[in-house]
Structure formats: C-alpha cells, structure tokens
C-alpha cells in the first residue's frame, strides 16, 4: 500500500451486516473511501500519519470491507499527481515528481508501458523518457450571473447595462437557449451552463458586442 493507492468498498451501505462494529475513525475512513480518493488524501483529511492510516486501512482490509482498486497507467499517474499535490508542495510538476521517485515510485521510469504487452519491445536504452498523460479535465461550467455582471460592469448605468445584456443575447440562437431550458433571462438570476455550444455562442456574442472577451472568472467548478 502506498499513499497513491486507491481503495473501493466491497459492499453497498445497505448490505453491511447490522452486527458490524467499527471504531469511529474506521467508520469515517470507510465512508470516505469511494474508489477515487487516494490513501494519502484520506490520511491527510483525517490528519493521520502514515502508520496510523496504514493501521486503519489494514483493519478494513482484514474485515474484507474494502479492496484495493486496480488502476490503469493513466489512473495511477493521476493518483500519484493528486497525492503529490496534497502532500508535497515542493513538487512542481508531475514530470519532476515522477523523476524524483516520490510517493512510492522507486527508480527511474524509462518509458510508458505499451498498451499491448504482446507487442512490447523491451527498452534497451536507460535514458529517461516520459510523457505524462493528461489528467481528466473537469467540465467547464459557465455562470450566467457572472456573465451578466461582466456585461453590466462595462456599462455606466443600470439601464445601459441591461440593454447591453439584451444586445448580447439578441445574437445568441434562441434554439440553443431553449435546448438548455432558458426561456427568459432575469438580470439577478443565476444558471449554470455546461452546454459547450451555448457557452461558445455567449462568448462570441460578448466579444462581438463589447469588443472584450469573457474572463475566466465567469467559469466555476461544477
């Protein structure tokens, strides 16, 4: 088990025997295990050192409540990067992180393993070559209220701001708006837009109407 290991639960909550008794800390860790958080992240969350964390995970493993998740290369690298972010602020990049052998990776990585082991050619050269795979990028979510505020902030008064918003949205295809359930636009209401086509149309019309691009601040974490 390393800090980058990921565990998943063997049972749904309703399948747990009613006679099951765990320590409070073990329950906390158990509920936090979700098949995506690394052991290091969970230990950090509960402020456990590596030994304390290891003891909890070992108890849950012995009771067969959890199992270690098998990861593919991309998932593993993502987990290592997550662990690096949460445990070592000195690590500046994934590449550097892997080269330094932190978080349980010992020795240099020579190359990414081929997808098909049958066609694999053993590496003859020990020169470190590694191209990190991109971590899954979160879906961009646009806040309509932040867009409206940005447009209004470019205007000198309330009415001008509202007309500016109207002028921007005049250019947005109403079929796109309808597709996203937007039938009207109140200047104080917020909606989160994940439709990439609608985001693009709004961004283009803001640029066209105001001569300015929307700032990144109008996007929020989903």
């Amino acid at each position, binding site marked *: 088990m390393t800090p980058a290991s990921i565990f998943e639960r063997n049972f749904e909550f309703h399948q747990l025997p009613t006679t099951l008794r765990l320590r409070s800390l073990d329950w906390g860790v158990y509920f936090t295990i979700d098949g995506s958080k690394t052991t290091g992240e969970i230990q950090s969350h509960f402020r456990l050192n590596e030994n304390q964390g290891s003891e909890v995970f070992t108890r849950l493993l012995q009771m067969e409540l959890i199992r270690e998740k098998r990861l593919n290369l991309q998932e593993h690298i993502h987990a290592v990067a997550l662990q690096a972010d949460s445990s070592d602020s000195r690590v500046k990049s994934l590449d550097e992180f892997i080269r330094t052998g932190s978080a349980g990776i010992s020795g240099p990585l020579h190359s990414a393993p081929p997808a098909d082991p049958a066609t694999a050619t053993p590496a003859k050269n020990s020169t470190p070559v590694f191209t990190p795979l991109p971590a899954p990028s979160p879906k961009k979510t646009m806040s309509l209220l932040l867009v409206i505020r940005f447009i209004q902030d470019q*205007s000198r*008064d309330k*009415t*001008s701001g*509202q*007309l*500016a*918003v*109207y*002028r921007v*949205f*005049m*250019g*947005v*295809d*109403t079929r796109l*708006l*309808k597709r996203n359930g*937007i*039938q*009207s*636009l*109140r*200047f*104080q209401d917020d909606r989160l837009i994940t439709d990439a086509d609608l985001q693009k149309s709004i961004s283009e*019309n803001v640029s*066209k*109407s*105001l*001569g*300015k691009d929307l700032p990144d601040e109008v996007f929020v974490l989903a």
Partner: protein
Amino acid sequence: MVHPERSLRRLTFFRMNTSSPNESADQTLSRFLNAEQLEIFKKITTDYFAKLASSEAPPEIGEAFVQFESPVLLDYTSAVRISGSYTGTIYVTAPSVMIDHLLVLHQEAEINNNTRADMCREFSNVLSGNASHAFGSQWAISVPQSIWPGNPSDLLLPPSTFVMPLVWRKTQSYLVVGLHAIAQPVI
C-alpha cells in the same frame, strides 16, 4: 372571441444576425437603442397614466428581463415598428381590465369589445407619439398597429425581446422592445 394564444400564432418571428463582421463594438453600440432615450420613453408612457388619474399613485416600471421565443402578449396590444440601424417593434400589451380602467377614465359610457378595441387603437396612437418623441431623432417610427382578440396582425417580432413590467392599479401590463439587425424569417 379569439384567444390571445391564437393572435400570437399569427405573428412572424425572425432569426437575426448581428452586425457585420467589420463593424467595431463601439460602432454597433452607438447605433443600438440608447438608454437615455429608453428612459424618456418609459417616463412619458407612465406619465400618460399618471395624468389620467393624477390623484393616484403613478404606474411603476418593474425589473426588466429578456424573453426568448415566446413573446409576452396579453389581451390588447398597441405597437409601433421602429427602424434605424436595427429594426423591430415597441409595444405595450395589457389585460382587458386595464383597458377597462382607461375607458372609465375617458368617461366612456359603454364598455364592450368594440370600445376596448377603440381604446387600444387610441393608445397605439399615444405610443407612436411617445416613440417619436423619444427615439425620433435616430429611428423611423411606423404607423401604429393594434392587436386584440380576433384582430389579425402581421406584427413582426424578433425571437428575443426586452420586457419591462408596468404595474398600474394593481394590474400588470408590459412595455416591450424587440429589435433585430438583419431579418431572416424562419417561421
């Protein structure tokens, strides 16, 4: 009597393109509806009601919003087309009860669909005069149009409209501006 929904179906909607690609944002902004002119238009429209019933609270303009696809249309609608760098329609749409209030204030002896239609037409003339006063320096104002149940209309409305609620004597009407740049009929 034709339900307002049926009147609505007679209206033609337009999809619009915005300004030409070579035009700067400042150029299009200067030719768009001017906020000061809109404020003047709102004021003289509410003044019309205030003068009719000077002892009462004047009408209030509520928080504006933008409406997509389905235009706000009540029982009686008075409209004018405006054209300039953009073209479109300005209209006031009201429930019949508000028209009834106007008829009473005008000391109309009889209140029926015919007199309501007359009142709607008269209000359309008022609206046209107000629009000319507020926007006439930059926009051409067409002859007024009136729409009520059973009165066919070829009123053209763009799919996006700027709507301002107008509350008077506890009844809600709407002052609406709908503009577009280059018209392409789609419905």
